């Protein structure tokens, strides 16, 4: 008995000593099972595809809530009805540099840029028979397109921003890169879109970038830069494609399974990759938080058969405690949580071309483009006769056509009418503040004046 016990104890010690010395490496160098070392991120066909998908995911991240909010909430048509001050500030056009939503959007956008930079730098060097040259081009083209989209959004949000074009491996990367001008930023967008258009396939996909996505964004870029002829050219290229048309009824755009012929580029969500935007619009009686509430003016416009027409489908009504309550219904898939984020639509291409043509004096053609959009909504044709009337009519059309999408604020800032329409006369407030925390972390950054 004693002998046995001594042996047992001895065996214990031996095992322990053994554990300590022989399996030291296992103990001290465990391998992560759910992450990859960054130098192994893009090595073959599978990882190249995954890295590209990852960029879409980051673009999705800022387009799900933050970017639409920055588009519609500073405008006059949606009010914030919740408790969070960062939204209230946006609603009241009283932004401060510590607004946490703006910080979050800025962070997400540069994450997307870094993802795209990784693909652009990494995919070219992959040699894998399973990754044919055409697909390689496609992945690169997508990365260029997405980077262009993010830099375009950064530009219209903040003005010129730092242009980082190579993947980050250490925190020293990017050191000293200060803010470019808005023109330089847009130039970069143009360069990326040019690349993208060359590389991307001429396909009909609507939730991944194709040639037409790059052209449509390019039309918008030229519009923002007031390069009317180019805007018209690129919008025409998209409009003339058989793959895109104004769908009827209007509601078909936002009806499952989505990806209607209206859509040039949209970000698809699914139940396992959920979009909870509906939750912000639905009243609590329907399970939402009712954070974003359409104001009476836009409810009036959308319900007006001569203005909104079938776009009244953007609204819905329910009864709460005996009273009728109207709420925004663009994002309505509360069970399936698969509402897309709408990025580029053919209706916008028509209105881009209408505006570009009006600016070039092609009033009849411009009016035809405007009326194409109106006709789809079932409202009478516009009677605008002069260029100025046309431009105003286009602005009003955009207001109802894209009421709850990422448009109104950027549109009014672009045309310089945010002061007249919204009463924001301090033009310094037409760009967003650079996040305060990032200014502190990055000596190369300079704040926009007025913040």
């Amino acid at each position: 008995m004693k002998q046995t016990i001594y042996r047992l104890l001895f065996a214990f010690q031996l095992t322990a000593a053994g554990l300590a010395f022989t399996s030291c490496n296992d103990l001290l160098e465990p391998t992560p099972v759910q992450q990859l070392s960054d130098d192994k991120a893009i090595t073959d066909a599978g990882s190249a595809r995954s890295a590209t998908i990852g960029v879409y995911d980051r673009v999705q991240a800022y387009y799900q809530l933050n970017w639409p909010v920055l588009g519609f909430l500073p405008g006059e048509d949606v009010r914030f009805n919740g408790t969070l001050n960062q939204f209230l500030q946006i609603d009241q056009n009283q932004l401060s540099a510590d607004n946490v939503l703006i910080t979050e959007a800025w962070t997400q956008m540069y994450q997307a840029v870094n993802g795209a930079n990784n693909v652009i730098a990494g995919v070219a060097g992959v040699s894998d028979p399973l990754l044919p040259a055409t697909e390689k081009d496609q992945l690169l083209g997508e990365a260029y397109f997405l980077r262009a989209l993010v830099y375009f959004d950064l530009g219209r949000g903040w003005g010129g921003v730092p242009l980082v074009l190579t993947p980050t491996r250490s925190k020293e990367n990017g050191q000293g890169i200060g803010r470019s001008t808005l023109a330089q930023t847009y130039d970069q967008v143009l360069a990326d879109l040019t690349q993208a258009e060359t590389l991307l396939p001429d396909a009909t996909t609507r939730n991944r970038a194709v040639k037409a996505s790059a052209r449509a964004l390019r039309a918008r870029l030229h519009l923002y830069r007031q390069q009317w002829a180019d805007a018209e050219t690129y919008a025409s290229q998209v409009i003339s494609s058989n793959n895109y048309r104004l769908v009827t009824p209007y509601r078909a755009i936002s009806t499952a399974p989505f990806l209607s012929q209206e859509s040039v580029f949209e970000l698809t969500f699914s139940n396992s990759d959920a979009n909870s935007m509906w939750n912000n619009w639905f009243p609590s009686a329907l399970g939402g938080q009712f954070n974003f509430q359409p104001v009476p003016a836009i409810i009036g416009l959308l319900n007006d058969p001569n203005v909104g027409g079938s776009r009244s489908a953007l609204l819905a009504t329910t009864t709460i405690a005996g009273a009728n309550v109207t709420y925004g219904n663009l994002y309505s898939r509360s069970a399936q949580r698969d509402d897309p984020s709408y990025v580029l639509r053919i209706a916008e291409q028509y209105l881009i071309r209408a505006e570009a043509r009006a600016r070039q004096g092609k009033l009849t053609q411009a009016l035809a483009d405007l009326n194409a959009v109106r006709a789809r909504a079932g409202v009478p044709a516009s009677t605008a006769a002069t260029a100025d009337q046309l431009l105003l009519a286009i602005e009003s059309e955009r207001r109802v056509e894209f009421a709850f999408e990422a448009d109104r604020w950027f549109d009014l800032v672009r045309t310089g009418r945010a002061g007249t329409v919204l009463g924001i006369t301090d033009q310094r407030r037409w760009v967003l503040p650079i996040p305060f925390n990032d200014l502190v972390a990055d000596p190369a950054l300079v704040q926009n004046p007025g913040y």
Partner: protein
Amino acid sequence: MKLSTLLTAPIAVVSFTSASYAQIASIQTVTGTVTDATDRSPLPGVTVVVRGTTTGASTDGNGQFSLVLPAGGNTLLISAVGYQSQTVSVTGGAVNIALQADVKQLNEVVVTGYSEQNRKTLTSAISSVKGDELKDIPAASPDQLLQGKAPGVQVSANSGVPGGGIFIRIRGSNSVNASNDPLYVVDGVFINNTNLLATGLGNQVSSNPLADLNPQDIENIEILKDANATAIYGSRGANGVVLITTKRGKAGDKTRITFNTYQAWSKAPKQYDLVSGSELATLENERFLNDGGNPTQVPYRPVDSGGRGLPEEQATYDRLSDVFRTARTQSYELSAAGGSAKTQFYIGGGYFKQESVARPSSFDRFSLRVNLDNSVTDKLRIGTSTALSRTHRNVSSNDNNPVGVINSALFTRSNLPKFNPDGSYAKYGSFDNAQALINNLNNDAVGSRVISNVYGEYRFLKNLTLRSSWSIDFNDMYENNFNNTLILAGQPRGTANSYLSRDITLLNEQTLNYHVDFGDHSIQAVVGNTIQKNTFQRTSLAGQQFPSNDLTTIASAATQTGSSSRSQAGLLSYFGKATYSFKQRYTADVSVRADASSRFGQDNRWGYFPAVGLGWRLGEESFIRDLNVFQELKLRASIGKTGNQAGISDFAALGLVQGGANYLDLPGTAPLQLANPNLSWESTRQWNVGLDATVLHNRLLLELNYYDKYTSGLLLNVPVPRKTGFASVVENYGAVSNKGVEVQVTANWVSNPAVQWSTTFNVARNVNKIEKLASPITTGSRDIFRLEEGAPLYSFWLYHQTGVNRESGDAEYQDVNGDGQITVADRKLVGNAWPNYFGGVTNSVTYKGFDFNFLLNFEQGAKIMNMNRFFLVHGGTQSNIGYLREQLDRWQKPGDVTNIPRLTTNATSNNYGGTVQNLSDRYLEDGSFLRLRTLTLGYSLPKATVSKAHLNSLRVYVQAANLFTITPYSGLDPEVNSQSGVSNTKNFDWATVPQPRTFQVGVTVGL
């Protein structure tokens, strides 16, 4: 010296071997009975030695002993742990000896890291708390019981949710990103203290893993505070170490069976003070007019003119009474302890159930403990300490969560009905219906925990012992949540989540202990190694769209999604420690530990943590002894270094790309973190000087400590320019210091067989400061906290309101940079959540069979951000939130003097919105408090009476907890930390369950 876990004092060894001396021929036999002077119960296991000889005996289960007096010996020295030793002159025959409980601490044996030490030779700062002091407090977890008990140990419950998280800091916070929680060691097992609850409850740490331990099983708790005490724990010691020793059987002890129960009733001591429906309407109308509204169109005007009715017509609905209740707590515990010379055991089983004062949360626990020790031979001992527990939590969200129970009741406007005309639950704004939540929340979390250790101990020589111990801490949490369609979380067709989380630590350690006394010299040494491996894994499942509210498992869901994750870390350590003592007068300690962690790069993997300590018992020097003032006078000094690696991810040093960045249901990867191959240990240097003194014939005991800690190479998420695509990188950058003083005074006012009265007072002050930081870091909801060089952690970053303009009624703020406008640059640090000082008072009186105790604890000077006021004094900017009555004090007309600005939603006034975003320090309050934590009156029935009922002992008691709290704080409870899940924040009050006021009755029966 591991025998002493069983027989405690060195003299006990004598008793253990006494049998061999009993045969010495003599003629005089002494018999006797040793009892407790207070309750007259017999004391087993008491050592009786004839002074000047090695003859001795120990008492049996009835407190009786018998020994033969050697020639010339006529004085018995009677000693027992926890009692004052006594000498008795005998000449033979029978004696009765009553021992007084020992209230002074100096003769205690103190459990230190991997060894034990007599308090006399201790050079470290260690606080001890006896399990007996803790057992009646109606709290689920042992850490919470330490509140007010030990100087320098700041303990506060994050909320009044039973089994919920605890904020505990030993000598302040050392770290920014790594953990600041102490290491808990239960009977040698390093236990996991990570919350495993995955269900999001509103940013509060939702469970306290220590609640898996039954406080009633605890023999004592030692809190190791200075580096000399903790350096032996190396990389895990920087935040202090809490050693919990559970009860064990004693040799020669007749089996003692104890049944213990208490029943308690709790209520929230205070309630929110909301406006009535008509007051709300008045405020809203005023806000409407202040915003320039048309006076004929105010919202609360007659219904027939299109309004919502006149203010006086508004009803008031009380939702809070639906939420708060009289909550029950019950505890039952049955234990048995005893042993023969060879085998000793303790077994205990317990059931504890506690309801939260806010519906519907509750906590219950079944626990079981088996501690066994067996002497296989003279040289070999084996044993185990094993605890099993099963906890069940019914959890519900509060704090920062609009669909939380308290939120929904508190924030919803008081003039709005609870139900729709059709009888369904009415919901407003982002809030749910509180009653709907109470009736329908279905969140179950079942925890299973095994903390077990087996050891073998072999005594090679008299003084040389090898011990090998193998431990597991298995912590498992299984959560099942179902949200039906009646609550918002279940929209639109029911949602469910299920999580299985498992945290396992395996630990093996070997120690070699050597102890030798020669002449006046004494040496104690230990060397050892440990291997630790920790694995964490979680599987989560979600389901949406259920066919019915009665089908609640994910199997019924139309859409089912799942995910799982795993991670692991290892730690390899070697350590050694030696103590040399001369005449028990001069003592020197030296220790070192070397740790290798898998979390760091190969070149920086090893960390070395040395410490030294010196003790000098001046009281033993003749020049002091001759003063005849001090019964004890000791100076202590120590310095050492400890490390920290907790709280960072297992792979923090690597540049990683993570999966899960999916799109179109295709797998995607995205950059996760930047590499830092230089990442290494965060280390804390601490020195400590201390003084222990006993004067006035042991009536007054004083313990003083001063410490200075400097933590450098902080494991910090250093902000990087976001243009890189990252927000931060983990680096060893920055430093934090904590300096402080601790005082403990014990007064033994009266100490005689009939009456014993003692009071212990402790107070501590800690000054925390961020010494070095790359750039300021903001954190917490709305970035309310900001870390800045030169300021303490937990500093509030707000606009400072200087007043309300008497003429305009608008708030005025300090223009910090003097540029004439209020921008974010005018936010400043306006206070912090650290108390200037904190401590407690414990008072204990026993008179005959009665015992009377109270415990006060206090904190002075900590600030609390009262988010309830932030939301409920909103001036009209929150269209779906009601008002606290404080809003009625708003400015109304020129000349009004108040600090509540005029009602308005106008952003440019900055009153409640605008640039300031309501982030005004008018919601920052003084959270000082003095609280009567417990007040207890007990009575132990006389032995004679109890015997008639065939019982050994019987004590009944009544107790009140939180009977009163004196505080200037306007919220429900100044002990609050509702954003405990958010790092670097503290003292947020946000729709949180307060600490309850509890009345309790209990009985302890010795069978």
